[in-house]
Structures are given as structure tokens and as C-alpha cells.
């Protein structure tokens, strides 16, 4: 079960779209906030790796209309002596802080299949606990590793995305694909909300020829619900980028 209210903070129910900014890389959050706080407040969600960043910038997040904040949980959790307990602790803390969702990455395609397996283990555990607490769970499903090539890329994306859904993700983020019909097939097999992973993200192996706005527009046209910006946040004018993204996704300036 997923809290309708929390999903609604991320995906605006009027258009079921969102623009999320991945700020789990530390400095980017401050950069955006100091650049233009008005733009930040219009974003649908900000991804962070810890609670501190939210607390330190509380003025951004107070009030009903403020952007939601999403907690990124990585594989370090599996290092704990009792990973399930650790996950529970993190989720509870996230709820206390009123995070709207949890996000994690699922990768498949490593030569050492144990890495694939651990990745699956992580998202399964997170999904399970998130479900208990009705916290929406976002999975970035990206093929990654030595075994992934241009030939098997689109099918690998389909594989990873479908696995994320099977394990219980509320929202799945997928990398862009060169052929738009391939992307469409993935969306159809996933059936839940899908977001585009930033083409400039470290997770995306296959580099795209088109520019970001075109890639995004095509993706939205075939039914994706928005984008998770990460790498692009470091390229060019930040405020222009965010403004363009918001107007593309939500249709208004």
C-alpha cells in the first residue's frame, strides 16, 4: 500500500507529471538554492542522501506548496550487521522527517553476478519495508556492468525495469533509449509511473545524440511521467535548465 498523499506530493494529480532534482551529491543542493529559490520551490522533489541537508535548508521545505524531499538509500546498508533492521531504522527516520519517498538504484549486468544479486536484495528489502510503512518507493532501473552492450541495451533496460516492478516499486526511473518504440515497449511492460533518468547521469551507458529537451519531449509523448535530473545539473545555466524542464513537463512557464 502506498500513501496517496505522498505520491501526490511528487506526482501532481492534475497532470501526473514531475521534475525531480537529484542533489545527493552534496554541493548541488546549495548551488540550486542560492541560484534561484523561486525555481527550487517549483520543483516537485529534491533527492538527498541524508536528513541533514533538509534540516539545514528548512526554509525551502516549510509550507504546503514546498517541494517534496526524497531519501536516497544506497548499498552501504547491506554492510550493516542486521541490514533489515538498518533499513527499518532508515525508513522510520524518513517518515519522522516526513520524506515523501525513498529512491534507490537497481543495476543488472555485472560480470560478477553477485553484484546483480545484492542489488536486487537491496531493492527487495527496501520495497518490503516501504510497503509496510506506505512510503512510495522509486527505483532507478539501469543496466550497468561489463555484460551490457549497445546490442542488448534496450532489452536490458526492459529486464531491469520489469524486475523493479515485480519487486514492488511504486515509480520506476529508466534511462533514455535511441529508438522511441523500444522505450514505449518498456513503459508498457512496467505499467506503473515511469520517469526518465537524466541522459547525463552516470547510470546511463548509452550516450544519446539528441539534446535533453528533445529526448524528454519524446519520452513524455509516449507516456513517461517526468524526469530525474542529475548530471545535467552540472552543465550550463542551472536556472534556465530547471525552467525549461518545468515548462516542458508541466506545460506552463
Amino acid at each position, binding site marked *: 500500500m502506498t*500513501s496517496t*498523499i505522498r505520491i501526490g*506530493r511528487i506526482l501532481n494529480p492534475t497532470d501526473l507529471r514531475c521534475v525531480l532534482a537529484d542533489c545527493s551529491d552534496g554541493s548541488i543542493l546549495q548551488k540550486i538554492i542560492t541560484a534561484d529559490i523561486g525555481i527550487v520551490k517549483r520543483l516537485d522533489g529534491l533527492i538527498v542522501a541524508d536528513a541533514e541537508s533538509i534540516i539545514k535548508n528548512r526554509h525551502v521545505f516549510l509550507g504546503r506548496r514546498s517541494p517534496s524531499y526524497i531519501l536516497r538509500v544506497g548499498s552501504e546498508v547491506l554492510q550493516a550487521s542486521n541490514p533489515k533492521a538498518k533499513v527499518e531504522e532508515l525508513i522510520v527516520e524518513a517518515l*519522522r522527517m516526513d520524506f515523501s519517498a525513498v529512491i534507490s538504484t537497481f543495476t543488472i549486468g555485472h560480470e560478477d553476478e553477485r553484484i546483480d544479486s545484492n542489488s536486487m536484495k537491496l531493492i527487495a528489502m527496501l520495497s518490503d519495508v516501504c510497503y509496510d510503512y506506505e512510503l512510495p518507493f522509486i527505483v532507478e532501473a539501469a543496466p550497468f556492468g561489463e555484460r551490457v552492450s549497445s546490442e542488448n541495451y534496450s532489452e536490458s533496460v526492459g529486464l531491469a525495469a520489469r524486475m523493479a516492478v515485480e519487486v514492488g516499486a511504486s515509480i520506476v526511473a529508466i534511462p533514455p533509449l535511441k529508438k522511441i518504440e523500444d522505450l514505449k515497449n518498456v513503459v508498457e511492460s512496467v505499467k506503473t509511473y515511469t520517469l526518465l533518468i537524466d541522459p547525463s547521469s552516470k547510470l546511463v551507458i548509452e550516450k544519446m545524440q539528441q539534446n535533453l529537451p528533445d529526448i524528454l519531449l519524446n519520452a513524455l509523448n509516449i507516456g513517461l511521467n517526468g524526469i530525474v535530473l542529475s548530471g545535467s545539473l552540472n552543465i550550463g545555466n542551472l536556472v534556465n535548465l530547471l525552467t525549461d524542464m518545468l515548462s516542458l513537463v508541466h506545460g506552463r512557464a
Partner: protein
Amino acid sequence: MIELSFGKLVRLSRIIDPSDGRSLVVAADHGLMLGPIKGVVDLEATLRKVIAGGPDAILVSLGQARKLGHLFASRSAPAMLVRVDWTNAFRDKTYTLPARSIQFNKVATVKEAVKVGAAGVVTYLFLGFDGENDHIAMVEEFSSECETWNMPLIIEPLPMGPRVTKANYVDMVKRAVEKAVELGADALKVPYTGDPYSFKEVVEASSGIPVLVLGGYKALSIRDSLEVISEVLDAGAVGVVFGRNVVQDPNPDEAVRLMRRIIHGKETVTDILRERIKPPVRILVDVERCSGCHICELACSFSHEKVFNSSLARLRVEASEDGKTFTPYVCNLCYSCVNACPNGALKVNSRTGAVEVSPELCQGCGICVDSCPVKVLKLINGRPLLCDLCDGLPECVKWCSRNALKVEGGW
């Protein structure tokens, strides 16, 4: 003061708007306490109207919270508050199966409220009856759960039971507020003590914890509710939690909008009243509804002359010979007197449509008195006593509790 945890801070900021520190909450949890009362039978339909008016938050029970989550799912939607306790104490004689003793219970956990995405939980705290220690213990448990989950705790402290008298009522409200603060309330939902002076004392007793005022039974006129809102804000409340006065209004969205104007728009009630009035301000009389109380005459004479004297009122109420009918006679702006005046001393006020006399031109002949078809004119000190429509907001209309006097287009 202990600093609030971030979780409580951010959730409270969804209820109390950080831009002005004010809040308009609509209560829609009556079904749990009172059954399917008017206005909440089809809760979703009512709430859609309420939401159209733009409240900051809506209070519902957990069951409804789960069913109606979609109404709250957007960053422009109101925040959701969840009622976590139940009581029979409000089922007085006007409801089915009135209470015979005060009972109360927990009906939801704070954890469930967190999961569903609530911004706060609400619980009663009664002071004034034998079970109050148990009630305090229950609220204590909620308080510690709220600490654990960083969920704002809104306590509704109320004097309730045999130890509450007319003499100690205000003191009991203060004591209940103090207890609630002691128990860890992050906000309070309190009754209005009736006047701003005693209410200031209640606000003081809250030691800085935000105070919201509850609405109680539905008022006869929304004008009364708006006035109360204005008064409590002046006395230090941050907003209101109004239930029946919104959901039982024929137009809940309009009711919420008007309340917003006072709370966030910082407008006055007079501002709002005035914009509804267009000249001529005609007072309509519904004879069927008149009960012969003469309050209109008292209000008129007192407002104008500062004394109670029916013969100085600009209107009058007559009982019929058989005592079965009461008829108010008011100036109905027929302007017969204006036309009859041989000296041109009577003119019409362009703003309200009321008749005015120029003292220099008036000869005191009394022809106007004879010309009046409803006989509401009389000469006092040689000048006609004229209804001035109280500058557009007639006092007689305001004080009439029967809706026997109304203003066309207004309240």
C-alpha cells in the same frame, strides 16, 4: 522553549501557513462522534466543495483518511489531520442516543496517521469529570507516540462534566489549556470564551503554543462566525477549526473563501459586509417570522440615542388585536415623505438610499409624518426621526435572530 523536531516543524508548516502564521482548518470528523449529521452524509461531495474554497487543512477520521486520500494528494491540496480518539461526550439531547456518562477511547495510532501522510493528529482532553485522570493518561500516550514519530499533536482541551459551572467556565478553559501544553501539545483547538478579554487570558495560558478556535454548533448567520474569527485573531489566536459552520453551510466553498479573507486576507467583517450592499438598501420584512420581541426597536434606539426607548426607534413592531400576529413596520424607501415635503427638506442619500433631512430647510410642519404609509415617522424636537439605514448595515437586521428583517442582497 524546546525546539521542535524537524518532522513536527515541517508538518505544522503545512497546517499553519509559514508566510503569515495563520491557519484555516475545516473539521469533518463529526461522523465519528455524532453520526451522519447534515453536511457530512456524502463526505466526499462536501469536501470537494470545501476544498474549492481553499482551507489550509481538513480534519478527518482515519477511515475517511484512507478512503479520501486522493482529495489531499497534491501540493496545492489542504493538509490532512487525523482524529485519533473517540468520545460520546458531544451526543447531548440534540443527537441520537444521548450520553449517560462520559466515555472516551483511542481509535487510531499515530503510526497509522504517519503512514497515511497526515500533517497532524487531534485528540480531546476533558477536564471537569471523574474520569479526567484516565483521559490525561490517554493523551500522555498519544503525546509520547507523537514524539516518537515527530507527528504534531493537536489537543482539544475542553471543560466537560459536573465540575464545570458558569462561574468557573473560563478558568476551566485556562486550566485545560495549561494541562494540554504540559502534556506536549504542538497546537491547541479551544472554545471561544465569548469575549476578547477573557480569551486573551486563554491565549496567555497557552504559553506560545499556537491556538486555533473551534466553531461548535452552527451559527444562525455566517456573519456571526466571521465576527468570532476576527475577534479571536485580534486576541491572539492563529486561526480556527470550524466544522458545522462550514459543512452545514449551503455553500461550503463560499463559507471557506469568506473565512480565508478574514484569516489570511486580513480583511475586516465590515469590509466584506459592505461589498454586498448596493443602494438602495431595502429592508425586507417577513411578518410570518416575527415573534414580537422588539429587539429591533431596542437596537435602533440604543444605537442612535444610547438609551432604551421604543418611542425613539425608527421602526416599530405592532401586535395584532388578537395577539396572533406581530408586524414590524420599517421605512421601505417609498419616498412619499420626500415628495410630500413642501420645503424640499428631505433628500435621498445616494450611498444607501436612506432619507435625510436638512435641518435648515425643515419647518417642523409634520406633513412628512402624515404622508408615511407605514407610519414610522414622528417629530422629535421639531424634526422628523428618520431611518438612516445605519449607513448601509442596519442594526435592526443584525440583531434580529428570526430572519424577520433582511436586507435585499445582503445578510
